[in-house]
């Protein structure tokens, strides 16, 4: 089946079978291997991407369901050169060790802060409870997210 959607601002057209998840389509067909696949049944959050502005698990979405959608993967978060403010905050706070969960953490927190730039620590912890990290203990990830809020507040105003 042919699926047409937009990934990181670029229109793509892919031929996939119905059973192909959006995660596998991104990785195997479009070679966007930043999206990691952990559990493949919607528990770990590593495969989180942003579809039409919402953070979703790409292992629980079929590629064919993405027809016409605007998809952002972790690759789409960075500017042409260097890192986004959120990525920089992750680096500054050592918010990653093995890095497996990091793409899902970044996409999830990016989607959250884009909508709720004033999210407090409780809200951030609540949201990333859907993303498993087995290295950091989350403390540094939460610190990075708190630190990155300023850049979202500038870009989006003060809407809670």
């Amino acid at each position, binding site marked *: 089946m042919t699926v047409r959607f937009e990934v990181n601002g670029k229109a793509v057209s892919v031929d996939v079978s119905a059973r192909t998840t959006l995660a596998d389509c991104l990785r195997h067909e479009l070679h966007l291997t930043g999206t990691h696949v952990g559990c493949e049944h919607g528990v770990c959050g590593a495969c989180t991407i942003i579809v039409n502005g919402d953070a979703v698990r790409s292992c629980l979405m079929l590629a064919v369901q993405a027809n016409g959608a605007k998809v952002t993967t972790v690759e789409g978060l960075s500017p042409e050169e260097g890192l986004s403010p959120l990525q920089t905050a992750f680096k500054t706070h050592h918010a990653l060790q093995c890095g497996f969960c990091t793409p899902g953490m970044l996409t999830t927190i990016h989607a959250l802060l884009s909508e709720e730039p004033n999210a407090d620590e409780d809200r951030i912890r609540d949201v990333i409870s*859907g993303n498993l990290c087995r290295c950091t203990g989350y403390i540094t990830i939460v610190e990075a997210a708190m630190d990155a809020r300023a850049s979202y507040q500038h870009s989006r105003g003060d809407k809670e």
Partner: protein
Amino acid sequence: MKLPQFDYQAPTSLIEAVALLMAGKGDARPLSGGQSILPVMAFRLAEPSLLVDLRNIPDLRAIEVSAAGVRIGAMVRWRDILDNAQLKDALPLLPEAVDHVAHYQVRNRGTIGGSLAHADPASEMPAVALALDAVIEVVGAKGARDIAAADLFTGSLSTSLSHDEIIVAVRFPAWPATRRYAFEEFARRRGDFALAGVATCYDVDAQGHAKNVRVSALSIADTPIRLKAAEAAIEGRAIDADAIKAASAAASAEVDPAGDIHASARYRKALVGTLLGRALTRAAARTAR
């Protein structure tokens, strides 16, 4: 695990969708948000030959609030319920319960109709539908019909829906101004399946006594269940510490949960009573709107 093979169709009308399900003879399944059926397929607990995606069918995404009650389209996502300002007054138990549904990303895709059709005994929505006497509107080859929530759930992951029927909306009766309510569940990790949960509501009469008491429990049997002994224990009474204690004891006594790797039967039995005690304490502390 990767998903098994299946065909996929995304029809643009309910009539077409029903026809596809009919042709599938029980081997075709509707696809709404996919947050339950896709994991179930990954585990090979279901291997439908065809998924009929409802995403292109219009009119399944509305939340309508009127004097008669609330009508929520089957494709309304958890996220839409939490974002809806009207529901906080018109049906406050619903957003309170939905706040416990899974995690952030799942709430962005999962739908109310999908959850009811999936009928997981550990999920929040079936227990809320049961407590509130919700009516499930379905459309199938024989036309449209209404199913009372009490008649929908027939077993674990089983419903009285025929294989060609699609849930199109859920209706909730109007919410009386004097109604008190609370939803409580316990999971080891927030967002995980609850070890047990309760939804409760009651109306308060002029004497301050509880009327129309409803208590339903999730994750305690093969289907969501009403806890009728607990309801009877406090019907017509003022909800004070004694009443709460009586309801809590009745709830623990009347349930017969199974034990599993997550919690023993005894633990679940005690937990239901504790959760109902917490729920009624919070419900009684709420002031009338």
